């Protein structure tokens, strides 16, 4: 099996979550489009893009095609999982340079770990 990004699971969960009542609430609250460039090892290398469209409630693999995303985040696979699990604070990651942000910072600030549903453990 080709090495899949761990982030894939998180995005998949988010995708399902956005269809629930709680997910619809979240969409209304944020109503922005984020793009994530996830790198397996080092930012900028072999990145895989995901689009989280909180206007339409969609999560897609690939860069945003409807124009410019409100904010684009670039980070490592591992860090993204930590971010989604609340183990890494996005602002701190940003200060450290392990999270890069393009676009509107105020849009980026609405991106918080609690928008991600948490994975349950078998």
């Amino acid at each position, binding site marked *: 099996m080709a090495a899949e990004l761990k982030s894939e699971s998180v995005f998949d969960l988010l995708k399902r979550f956005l269809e629930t009542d709680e997910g619809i609430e979240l969409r209304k609250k944020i109503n922005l489009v984020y793009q994530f460039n996830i790198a397996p090892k080092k930012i900028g290398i072999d990145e895989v893009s995901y689009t989280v469209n909180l206007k339409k409630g969609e999560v897609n693999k690939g860069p945003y095609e409807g124009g410019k995303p409100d904010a684009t985040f670039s980070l490592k696979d591992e860090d993204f999982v930590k971010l989604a699990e*609340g183990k890494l604070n996005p602002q701190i990651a940003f200060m450290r340079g392990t999270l890069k942000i393009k676009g509107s910072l105020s849009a980026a600030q609405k991106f918080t770990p609690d928008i991600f*549903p948490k994975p349950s453990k078998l």
Partner: protein
Amino acid sequence: MAMRDLVAGGAACAVPGSSSSNPLGALANTLLGSSSKTQERLKEIPIATATSSENRFFQDVEDPLRALPGAEFEQQPFPRPGGQGSEFLRGFRSADQNENGLADAWDEIQRSHVHPPPQANIPQLDHVYNRGPQLQPTLDGPPQRVLSNFLHSFVESSRGAIPFHPAPLPLLGLSEGDKQCIRDRSSIMARHFFADKSEDFINAQVNALLSSLDIDSDVHVKGPLPGRFRELEDYWNESQGSLRPGPHAADGWIAEFNQHRLDRSDPDAWAHAFERQHGANGWASEFEQEQQLASMDQMRGVNVPNLAAMEQTRMLAHTLSQNNDPKFQNSKFLQFVSKMSRGELIIDDNQVKPAAGPSDWATEYQQQYTRGTSWADEYVRDEVSRGPDRWVNEFTTEGEQNGSVDDRWVNEFSKLHVNDWVEEFGQQVEKGELGDSSADNWANAYDEYLNERVAAKRQSEASGGDYVFSGMNPYVGHPNPLKEGQELFRKGLLSEAVLALEAEVLKNPDNAEGWRLLGIAHAENDDDQQAIAAMMRAQEADPTNLEVLLALGVSHTNELEQAAALKYLYGWLRNHPKYGTLATPELADSLYYADVARLFNEASQISPEDADVHIVLGVLYNLSREYDKAIASFQTALKLKPQDYSLWNKLGATQANSVQSADAILAYQHALDLKPNYVRAWANMGISYANQGLYEESIRYYVRALAMNPKADNAWQYLRISLSCASRNDMLEVCDSRNIDLLQKEFPL
């Protein structure tokens, strides 16, 4: 053996605690770089232990105030290396046969400490500590002695700014790399020592040193730098490219370094302050020297990136101060940034620290001393639980870690892409794009950053794939810890069972059953990292154990590590007496998910009544996120094994991950009815409530899970998120301080 190893062999031992011991090694380390081959260092451990441990143990027994530099030597000169040192070693070595050896050795040292001081009579120490007439030592003997003595005398020449006399030396056999190091470092060091002297004097000093060592005396390095520095050069140029026209890396350093000195009001103040405070007696001076060298290392390691960061933050602070919002002006974040820009805070090892100004220096020194004490505590504790072999391993890894300091800071430096975000931030502030709340957000982020540092530290202790034993274990020495552990596990006292089982595997490290049950206990306690670590040991001891292979597959699935999970689940099939024939050996090299799933489907057709096959299938479908199929598999298995609480939890977790939270909660309830202390199910309950937006509810379940296992780190993170989502920010501090009693009182279930 390389020169570096001969000289620096003992130094690694001196680094973890304070750096007071083994100045010789540390000096050589500073000069030659601390990278060295593990094997060679291993051989030298006994010696290193003998010379450095004595000093350290003395510090431990002294109370911290008395443990000021020089104080211990006023009361009693140096321990005789032949004395307690070797006695300690004997005890240490005999530990394999005699469990009390270590304790005796320890006591021995404690006792002998009270005895009248022995005479210091070894030439090297004499030289180092007695700053007598022998400023220029006799230069003969083995090469490493000659070199270290020679370098010492160079260092000493700085004390009185005495011109340094070249001396004829025997052939030292320095490699080109060593020469390069000495050349680079001595020229920088000299600028540190002789800051008040003219450039000519400095050059003369360095040239004298270099010519004696038969090193090309051109202070300004020519040609390519050795490998380690080439990397630095890249990073340096990368970050400074826009600021200055790319000077040579080494020159850049020196200039940067001098500039940094000017930033501090009185560059020598801290050194003098130290001298005033502790007297200029031999030992203290030597120590000061040491610290200068050590701080040189820090200069190299930290300040170069810091200066870049400072420059950037200065720009940032300027931009921010243009913002007239009073709220913003008073924000902690702005204060943080301006502190950074003034150099009052530095980023060191990914942590923001206050810069050690002149007056802070002594404090820092004392802190280092205090750390020495905890080192010894740790050492004693470790000895109890690990035995000497472990200790040796640990020692070498620690040595390696210290050895990689150079690489580390280069990495660190590369992480500081300050340019990007400063620009970004500045632009946005100018455009007024940040809302009112942003200042508070950033300020909070800074506060959280401090918390995160604590968490990160804890994390780094637990990570690395090695099993981490608990510090204090009452079950060590128990006649039959395995039986006790099994009993506790059956009763559902998971955290207690973990301790008993740890005692078992400490006693019998090859007991697969001990490790396996320990792994299960951790998994049920919601700690997959430790579960994996324990299960790996179980698998080492018993490579074909099916339960172990399945547990490893499950834990790796939880950690989203697909390839590893697939490997173990396939291993389960291959080692199964009934289905092993299905597994084709050539598959093992290139596992494809589809193939493995197909094989398990075949297996389930061979014996549809085998619940285990359905369980593995369920896990596999979780890996591919085909949750409907996974749910069906687990439900089939549950018909065959309705009393399996972990199976109910697996069903619940799968339902939760396919956002059927209400069903999930029912399944968890089943699991908890069968096993009330199932921490993982409690934590999963919390997750399901949180994912439905029922944060208040989720908090109660997280708290319950944490009350049973305060080490469940995931649950702490999730609790924190739920607290802020439920607008219970008043309890965040309680959460951060992990005060479970208060949380339980506030959120009863």
